[in-house]
C-alpha cells in the first residue's frame, strides 16, 4: 500500500542509523576489569609515575562462592606512565579488559610521591567523568604497592578491606577518614592544610597485615609530617569530627578507668585582638562511664562524677594542645583556622591571607572542655 511505504523507509533508515553505527558507550559487565583500588607510587625513572590498579578477579570470586578452592580474588597491576592517565591507559598492555574505575573505593598514595607533591597525580581522579569523590584517600607508609599486596582476612578484596578499615575508625577516633572530596576542598582553600590517614604494613610471625595508624599532614600537596593517634584525636576534636572513642583517665591513686565518647560538639570562635589572632575552642562532650576499674567507681555520686569529668577534660585538652603544637611546628593549618577567620572577619582577612604562614604559628588558643557523664551501662553502684 502506498501510504505505508514512506514510514517504513524512514524507520528503516533510523533503525539502521542507530543500530549499525553501534552502541557507542555500551560495555558489557563481563568485558570490564573492575578496579577496587588505585595506588600511586614513584617510578624508577624520575619523570614517570607508577600506577597500581587493583583489579578484581571476578571468576575467582564466583568460584570461591561455590567451592572453597580458587585463586586470588584480586590482581594488582602495576604500570608506569608519564602521567596518571597515560599509565591508566597503558594498563591495557598487560590487562585484557578495559579498566573500569567507577567503583573504586580507595586511593593509596605512596609516601615518596606524597613527599614530592601529589596533586598533579590525583587531579585526574577528580576530572574523569565516572569517578567519584567519595573514595577514601590514604597514605601508605612506604610503597602503595606493598599496602595493596597484603592478603587480608574476612574481606578478601584488599581495597574494600582498607575502605572498611577507614570506615570503622570512628570506634577510636584516633585515625582520620578523608574522602577525596575533603582532600580537594582543603587543598583548594588557600590556607588550610590537608591530611590523610596512614596505612602501615605490619609483619607478625611472617604474616602480613594492615594497620591504620596516624595521620599524614600535607603542606599544600606535599607530605610534611605525621600526627600520632593522640594528636589525631586532638585534630578531630578541633574540626568537630568525633563520632565515638575511648578516653582513658587516671585519677590520682585510683588506677585507670575509661569513658566512652557518645557525642561531641566543638565550637571554634576566632578573635582578632591587639595581640594577634586568638582561637576560642569550646568542646562539649557527652560520655558514658565504661568502667575498667578495680574498685567500681561510683558514678552515681556527684563528687565522683565531677572528679572523673575533671580528669577527662584534662585529657581532651592535652590532646588538643598536642595537636596544635605539632601543627604549629609543621606550620600547617590543618584545623581550618584560616577559614574560620575568613568567615568571621572577611574584611581583615584580605590582609592576613597572604601571610597566614607567619601568623599561624603565633596563634593563641584557649581551650575549654566540658564533659558530662550520662550513663554507666549495666552497673550502678556497689553496696
Amino acid at each position: 500500500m502506498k501510504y505505508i511505504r514512506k514510514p517504513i523507509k524512514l524507520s528503516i533508515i533510523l533503525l539502521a542509523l542507530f543500530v549499525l553505527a553501534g552502541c557507542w558507550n555500551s560495555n558489557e559487565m563481563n568485558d570490564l576489569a573492575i578496579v577496587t583500588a588505585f595506588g600511586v607510587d614513584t617510578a624508577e625513572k624520575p619523570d614517570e609515575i607508577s600506577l597500581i590498579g587493583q583489579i578484581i578477579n571476578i571468576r575467582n570470586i564466583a568460584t570461591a562462592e561455590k567451592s572453597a578452592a580458587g585463586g586470588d580474588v584480586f590482581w594488582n597491576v602495576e604500570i608506569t606512565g608519564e602521567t596518571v592517565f597515560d599509565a591508566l591507559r597503558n594498563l591495557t598492555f598487560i590487562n585484557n579488559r578495559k579498566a573500569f574505575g567507577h567503583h573504586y573505593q580507595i586511593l593509596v598514595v605512596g609516601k615518596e610521591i606524597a613527599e614530592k607533591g601529589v596533586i598533579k597525580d590525583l587531579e585526574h581522579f577528580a576530572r574523569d567523568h565516572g569517578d567519584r569523590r567519595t573514595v577514601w584517600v590514604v597514605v601508605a607508609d612506604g610503597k602503595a604497592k606493598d599496602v595493596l599486596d597484603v592478603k587480608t582476612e574476612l574481606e578478601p578484596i584488599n581495597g574494600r578491606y582498607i575502605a572498611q578499615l577507614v570506615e570503622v575508625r570512628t570506634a577510636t577516633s584516633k585515625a582520620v577518614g578523608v574522602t577525596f572530596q575533603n582532600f580537594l576542598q582543603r587543598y583548594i582553600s588557600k590556607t588550610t592544610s590537608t591530611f590523610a590517614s596512614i596505612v602501615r604494613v605490619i609483619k607478625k610471625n611472617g604474616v602480613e597485615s594492615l594497620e591504620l595508624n596516624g595521620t599524614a599532614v600535607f603542606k599544600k600537596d606535599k607530605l610534611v609530617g605525621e600526627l600520632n593517634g593522640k594528636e589525631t584525636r586532638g585534630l578531630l576534636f578541633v574540626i568537630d569530627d568525633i563520632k565515638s572513642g575511648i578516653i582513658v583517665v587516671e585519677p590520682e591513686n585510683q588506677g585507670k578507668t575509661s569513658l566512652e565518647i557518645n557525642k561531641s560538639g566543638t565550637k571554634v570562635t576566632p578573635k582578632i585582638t591587639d595581640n594577634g589572632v586568638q582561637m576560642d575552642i569550646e568542646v562539649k562532650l557527652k560520655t558514658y562511664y565504661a568502667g575498667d576499674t578495680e574498685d567500681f567507681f561510683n558514678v552515681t555520686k556527684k563528687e565522683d562524677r565531677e572528679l572523673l569529668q575533671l580528669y577527662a577534660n584534662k585529657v581532651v585538652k592535652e590532646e588538643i594542645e598536642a595537636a596544635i603544637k605539632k601543627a604549629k611546628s609543621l606550620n600547617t593549618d590543618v584545623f581550618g583556622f584560616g577559614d574560620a577567620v575568613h568567615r568571621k572577619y572577611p574584611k581583615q582577612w584580605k590582609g592576613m591571607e597572604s601571610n597566614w604562614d607567619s601568623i599561624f604559628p603565633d596563634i593563641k588558643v584557649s581551650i575549654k572542655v566540658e564533659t558530662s557523664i550520662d550513663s554507666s551501662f549495666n552497673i550502678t553502684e556497689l553496696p
Partner: protein
Amino acid sequence: MDIEDQKISGVQLTQLMICFICGSNILLTVSMTVAKQDIWLAILGGVVESLVFAIIYIFITKKYPNKTLIEINDLVFGSFLGKLVSTLYIIFFFLQGSAYLRIITNFFKSQIMPETPMFVLALALLIVCAYAVNKGFEVISRLSMLFLIFLMLEVAFVFVTGYSDMKFKNFLPIFDITMTDFIKSANIIGTTHFGEFVVFLMFFALLNNTSKGKNSNIKIYIISILSGGAILIVISVITIALIGNLAPIDNYPYFQAIRIINVRDILTRFEIITSINILAMVFFKICVYFYATVSGIRKILKLSSQSFLVLPIGIIMINTSLMLFKNPFEVTQFATEIFPLYGLVFEVLFPVLILVITQMKKLFVNR
C-alpha cells in the same frame, strides 16, 4: 481542531514558564564561577532584574492581548521594519534553541556517554521535540506540570538524602562579593534564566478566554518568576552546601553535588535521575524555542499550516547546534561574556522600543 488554533489556560502557561526557567539550571555554573558561595544573592538580584523586564512584557501583553510578537512588530514598526525585527527575533529564537540543544548534548557527552557522537544525541532529542512541536503548543504546556512535579520530587529527595552531608557554614562569609561581580552574576542569571521570557510574547495570544482576565498576565509573570527563582535558589543552596568551594570549579556543580550523596551505600549514585530531569527541562526549553521559530515563520510568511516546517527546521537546528560552538568552552564563554549583552538587545531593547513607539503613537493620535 487545527493545531495552530489550540488554546491554553493561564495555569498551564505558568507551569510551562517555570519549566522554561528550570531549563537553564544547567547553566548555573556560569554565574557560580563569578558569585561563588553568594550565588543565592546573585539569584535574588537576577529575580529583581527579571521583574523589571517583566514589567515591560506585562505592558506589552496588556496592550496587545491577542497579538503575537510578530504581529505586534508589524503594528508598531510598520510592515517592512516590523518584518525585519521579526526576522531578527526568529533568528534569535532559532539560535537559542540550537544553543540549548548543544548545551544538553555537551552535558550528556561529557558526563554520561563520552563515546556517543553528539549528532546522535542531538538527533534523538530533536525527534522528540519535533514530535511535540508537531502536536502543538497545547501538548507542550500540558505536559509541563508533570515534569515540574518530577523536578520538585527530585529536588526534595536530594535535599532529604543529602541533608546529613550538607555544611551550611559553606555559605559564610556572606556578602563576600564585589559589586561588579554581583552585578555581573545577577545579570547573567537575569538574562539567561529569566530574560529569555521574551519568547513568551509569542504565546500570550494563545491564552483561552477564561484566562484572559484583567490582571492574569501580571499573575502569570510574577508567579512563574518567583517560583522559578525559588527552585533555582534551592538547587544552588543544595550545591553549595554539599560541595562548597569545589562548586565554582566544576562544570556541572549540581550534578557533581548529587554524586557525593551517600546514605548507607544504598541511597547513592542516583545522579542519573538528575540527568533525566535536566534533560526533561531542557526539552521544554528547546520545544518552546522550536515552536516559536516555526510559528514565527508561519506568521511572518502568512502560511496556513506550519507542520511541514517542523522537519526541515529541526534538521537545520541539529546542524546549527553542532556548528554553533567549536567546543564546550566556547559555550561557557558565550554564556558568561556575550549573552548577557547580546540577549539584552532582544530582551529589553526591542520590547522597550515597542512600548515607547506605542505610547508615542497614542499621543500623536490623541493630539
